[in-house]
C-alpha cells in the first residue's frame, strides 16, 4: 500500500496523486449449475461470509409476451402471487415470511417474471418453502385482484400528475408504433387494466410457469445446505401447464415512423421541463454489446459524461443529464434525459442534440475512452459485493439465454473496445435525425422559442384539449412505468447504480419509491 519514497509535499498535503497499489485479483464467484428432472435449471453461488442469502426463481416470459388487450396482466399476476395461496391467505403468508426475517417478493417486467426472497442463511430452507408455495399455488382471490386493479388505476392517476412519469409514459407512446408492446407501460393502461380479473391472472400464471424454461438462482453463505436437494424437494414436482408461452419469440419493437416529432405536454407554471429525446434502441443480445456500453458511458452514463458535463457542469441547466439504452429481449428505448429550468428548455434540447450528433460525427478521445473503460472494468468487483447483486446478474443471464462466461469475460471484452468500435456503435445505433423530443413543461413559456428553433413538427397537448395529432391516444400516453422491471440488463451499467446522478442518499421521500429499471448508461 505504501506509495514509494518521500512524495513531494505542498504545504500540508502531498502534491502528487498516489500511484495505485497492487490489485488483488477478483473473479466473479464460481457458479454450480444443475438441472432437475422436470427441466428446472438451478444455479448456486456459495459466498462464504455473506449470511443474507438471496434466492430467485425467474421465468423468461414477461409483459412483452402478453396479449395487447390485457396489457398489464403479467405485472399484476406477479403482484397477486402473494395475495393468497392454497395454504395461506395473504396476511398469513406475509406473517410467516416476517417470522423468518425474510422479504418475499414477486416482480415482472418486459422480459420475465420472478419470485425472490432475501433471508438469513439459517432460515433459507423455510423461506424457500414459502417461495415455492407462492410460485406454484396462488389462488388469485377475486377480491384482492379487484383491489390491486383499483390501486393500479389510482397509480395511473398519480402518474399523470408527476412530470417525470408523465414524460416517461408519453415518450414510449411517442417513439413506438401502436403495434409494439413497448408503446405502452408494462403495467398496462387504464383501458387494459380495467379488464384484468382473476381468470386473466390465472391464465397468465399458467402461460408463464414452465420449469423447462425457468431458472432458480441461490447466492450467499450456504454452509453445508444442499440447495439442489432442497430445490428437488420443493420444486421437483412442478409440471408445466401445457399452454406455456414461447419466451424466445421476437418482440415487435417497431418505431412509430413519425420522424422527428416534438411533442409537448403543456403543464402551466411548471418550473422545470422534463426532456426525453430518443428512439427505439437495441435488444440485449447484440454483437457489439460492450462497445455500446462504453459509448453510452461516454455520452451519458458517467458523471463526467458529455451530456452531464455540458448541461450541468458547464451550463448549470440541470441537476443531472444522462442517456442510455434500456436493453430488453426486443429493442428497448434509447433515451437522453434531463429536467431543466423552464427558461433554458430550448437551449438544453439544442445542446443535447448537438452532443448526440457529435458522438456520431467525431471519434472519442483516448482519454474519454480510457475513463469509460477503466470505470466499467474497475467497478466490476464493487458491483458484486452482495448476494443479491450476484443473484441478479445470474438471473439476467438466464433471461437472455446467455452463457455463464458472459460475466467472467465481461472485463476483457470491455478492455478490447477501441475508438473505432465506439464510433461504429454511435453511428449505427444513434439516429439523431429520427429522434423524437418529448417535453413536459410550460409550453407558453418556451413555445415561441421552440418553434423558432425548427427542430421538427411540434404537437402541443393541453389536458383540457387532447391532441389533435391523434398519433397517440391520451389514454395510452397516460400509463405508468412498471414498478418492477428489473430482470433485464445483466450488462454492467455505466452508472453501476447511479454515479450518473450522485445525490440524495438520505432522502426520506425515497420511501415513495419510483420505478427503477435497468438501463445501460444513464
Amino acid at each position, binding site marked *: 500500500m505504501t506509495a514509494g519514497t518521500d512524495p513531494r509535499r505542498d504545504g500540508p498535503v502531498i502534491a502528487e496523486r498516489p500511484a495505485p497499489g497492487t490489485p*488483488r485479483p*477478483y473473479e466473479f464467484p464460481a457458479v454450480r449449475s444443475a438441472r432437475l428432472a422436470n427441466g428446472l435449471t438451478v444455479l448456486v453461488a456459495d459466498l462464504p461470509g455473506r449470511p443474507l442469502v438471496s434466492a430467485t426463481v425467474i421465468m423468461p416470459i414477461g409483459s412483452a409476451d402478453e396479449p395487447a388487450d390485457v396489457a398489464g396482466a403479467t405485472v399484476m399476476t406477479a403482484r397477486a402471487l402473494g395475495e393468497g395461496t392454497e395454504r395461506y391467505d395473504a396476511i398469513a403468508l406475509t406473517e410467516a415470511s416476517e417470522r423468518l426475517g425474510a422479504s418475499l417478493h414477486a416482480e415482472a417486467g418486459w422480459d420475465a417474471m420472478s419470485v425472490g426472497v432475501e433471508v438469513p442463511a439459517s432460515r433459507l430452507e423455510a423461506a424457500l418453502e414459502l417461495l415455492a408455495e407462492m410460485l406454484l399455488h396462488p389462488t388469485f382471490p377475486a377480491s384482492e385482484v379487484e383491489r390491486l386493479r383499483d390501486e393500479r388505476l389510482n397509480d395511473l392517476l398519480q402518474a399523470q400528475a408527476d412530470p417525470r412519469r408523465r414524460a416517461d409514459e408519453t415518450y414510449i407512446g411517442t417513439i413506438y408504433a401502436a403495434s409494439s408492446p413497448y408503446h405502452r407501460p408494462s403495467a398496462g393502461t387504464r383501458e387494459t387494466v380495467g379488464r384484468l380479473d382473476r381468470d386473466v391472472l390465472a391464465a397468465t400464471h399458467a402461460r408463464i410457469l414452465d420449469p423447462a424454461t425457468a431458472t432458480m438462482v441461490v447466492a450467499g453463505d450456504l454452509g453445508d445446505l444442499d440447495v439442489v436437494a432442497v430445490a428437488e424437494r420443493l420444486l421437483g414436482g412442478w409440471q408445466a401447464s401445457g399452454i406455456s408461452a414461447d419466451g424466445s419469440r421476437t418482440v415487435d419493437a417497431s418505431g412509430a415512423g413519425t420522424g422527428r416529432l416534438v411533442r409537448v405536454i403543456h403543464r402551466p407554471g411548471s418550473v422545470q421541463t422534463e426532456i426525453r429525446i430518443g428512439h427505439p434502441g437495441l435488444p440485449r443480445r447484440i454483437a457489439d454489446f460492450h462497445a455500446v456500453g462504453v459509448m453510452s458511458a461516454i455520452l451519458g452514463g458517467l458523471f463526467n459524461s458529455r451530456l452531464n458535463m455540458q448541461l450541468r457542469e458547464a451550463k*448549470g441547466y440541470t441537476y443531472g443529464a444522462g442517456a442510455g439504452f434500456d436493453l430488453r429481449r426486443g429493442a428497448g428505448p434509447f433515451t437522453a434525459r434531463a429536467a431543466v429550468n423552464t427558461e433554458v428548455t430550448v437551449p438544453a434540447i439544442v445542446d443535447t442534440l448537438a452532443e448526440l450528433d457529435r458522438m456520431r460525427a467525431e471519434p472519442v478521445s483516448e482519454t474519454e475512452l480510457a475513463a469509460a473503460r477503466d470505470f466499467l472494468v474497475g467497478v466490476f468487483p464493487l458491483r458484486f459485493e*452482495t448476494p443479491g447483486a450476484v443473484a441478479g446478474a445470474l438471473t439476467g443471464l438466464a433471461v437472455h439465454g446467455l452463457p455463464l462466461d458472459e460475466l467472467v469475460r465481461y472485463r476483457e471484452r470491455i478492455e478490447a473496445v477501441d475508438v473505432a468500435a465506439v464510433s461504429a456503435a454511435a453511428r449505427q445505433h444513434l439516429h439523431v435525425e429520427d429522434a423524437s423530443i418529448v417535453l413536459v413543461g410550460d409550453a407558453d413559456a418556451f413555445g415561441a422559442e421552440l418553434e423558432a428553433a425548427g427542430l421538427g413538427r411540434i404537437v402541443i397537448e393541453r389536458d383540457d384539449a387532447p391532441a389533435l395529432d391523434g398519433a397517440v391516444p391520451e389514454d395510452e400516453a397516460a400509463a405508468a412505468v412498471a414498478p418492477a422491471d428489473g430482470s433485464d440488463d445483466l450488462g454492467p451499467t455505466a452508472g453501476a447504480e447511479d454515479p450518473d446522478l450522485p445525490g440524495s442518499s438520505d432522502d426520506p421521500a425515497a420511501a415513495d419509491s419510483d420505478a427503477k429499471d435497468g438501463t445501460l448508461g444513464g
Partner: protein
Amino acid sequence: MPTIVPTVEFTDTRLANGLRVIVAEDHLAPVVGINVWYGVGSKHEVPGKTGFAHLFEHVMFQGSKHVAKAEHIALVQAAGGTMNGTTWLDRTNYFETLPAHQLELGLWLEADRMATLLDALSQENLDNQREVVKNEKRWSYDNRPYGSWQEKLQGHLYPPEHPYHHSTIGSMADLDAASLEDVSEFFRTYYAPNNAVLSIVGDVDTADVLAAAERYFGAIPANPDIPPLGDLSLPPTLGGEIRETVYDRVPLPRVYLGFRAPAYGDPRLDALDVAGQILAGGKGSRLHKRLVRDERIAQDSALFTLGFVGGASICAGWATARPGIPVERVEAAYIEELERLAVEPVSTDELARAFALIEADELGAIQRVEERADRLSMYATLFDDPGLINRMLTRYLAVTPEAIMEVAAATFRADNRLVLTYLPELPPADAASVDDAATVDDSADDDEVAA
C-alpha cells in the same frame, strides 16, 4: 437476545490534529469504503445564510489545489470507484467506494479538499453550482407532486428560531446572496480535521491505513475556534395541534402526519422505531393492513422517524386517499391506529416479527463496506461512540411492549400533532390557505446533495 449479525471489529484513533480515524478490516472482497463525516449541517446555518452547508457540499466537488474541476469524480470513476456526498441537518458526509488498491487515491482526494479547497474556489464554479442546486430544488421539491411536505414538516415542528426549522436545501434568496467570502468563511470554520471523522472499511491492513492517514492528513491544521452550537433543546411536544391545508397539482388527496419525537440516541426513539416497523413496515403492518387492504380507503401508507440529535426528532407519515374517500376518514383511521398503540400492548408475535425484520435489515445494511463506513462515522460524529455499530441492534431487540406503549403515548398525542392535508388544486385565489397560526417557511428543502 443473541443475534445473527456479525460484530464489526475496528480500531479508533486520533491524529494529533484531531482527525478521528476508524478502520475496520474486511477481506471478503477487494474493495474499500472511505467515508468522511464533517460535524457541520444545516443546523449550523444562521438566518440569511440557509442552504450554505448543502451548496458547499457541491463546491467540494469543484476542485482543490491539486485537483481540477470535475477531476475528483473523474479520478474516482476511472479507478473503478463510486462516490457521493450528502448534507443533512446534523452533518455533511463524503464517501468513495474503490477497489482496495486505490485506497490512497481516495485518501489523497479527501485530504486535498480538506486542506486546499479555497485555492481552487472561483466565482464561476460557485455560480455554476448555485444554478445546479436551484435545479436540484426544482427537481426534488417544486416540480414534484406533494413536493413541499418535508419543508413544511420541519417548518411546523420546529419554531422559527430553531436551526431545524429550515430545510437543508435552504432559501434560494439566501443562496443568491452567497458570496465567495461567505463560502470561504464557512470552509475555514467547519472543514477542519478536528471536526471530521474518517472511516475506512474493507480489504486493507490497519497499520498501513493509519500510516497513510498520517501521511495525507497529518499536517492539515486544526481549527481551535469552531463555534459551539447554541442550545437546541425544545419542549417535547408541540403544545397544540397544527393543521395546514395545501392545494397542489395532485389528483388524490393525501394527509401527512408529523410529531415531535425523542432525540436521536434516546432509547425511547429506539422504541418508536420498532413501533414504526409494526405500524408501517410492509404488507403485514397495521396501517397497510387496515387502510389499504381491509378498509380500502387509502392507496398507500407510510410512517418513519428522522433521528436528530438536537432537541427533538421527527416521526412522520402519510396516507393517500382513494378516489371518492373523504381524506378526513383516512386521517381519522390513521390516527386511531397510532393511538391504539398507546393503550394496547403489541402481541408477542407482532414484536417477534418486527425484530426478525429489523435484524435482517441490519444484516443487509452492513454487508456493504460503504454502509459500514458510514455508520462508523455517524456514531462517532453524533455520539462519540463508533461502537454503537455493534450495539444498536441489541438496543432494538431489547425494546418491550411497555416501552412501545410509553413512547406512543408520549408522541402520538393531539397536542403534538401536525396535520398537513394536500388537496387537488383550486383556483389560485383559494390556494394555500393556512388554517393555523404557525409560520410557513418560504422555501423548500431537503437533505442532501450531491456532487
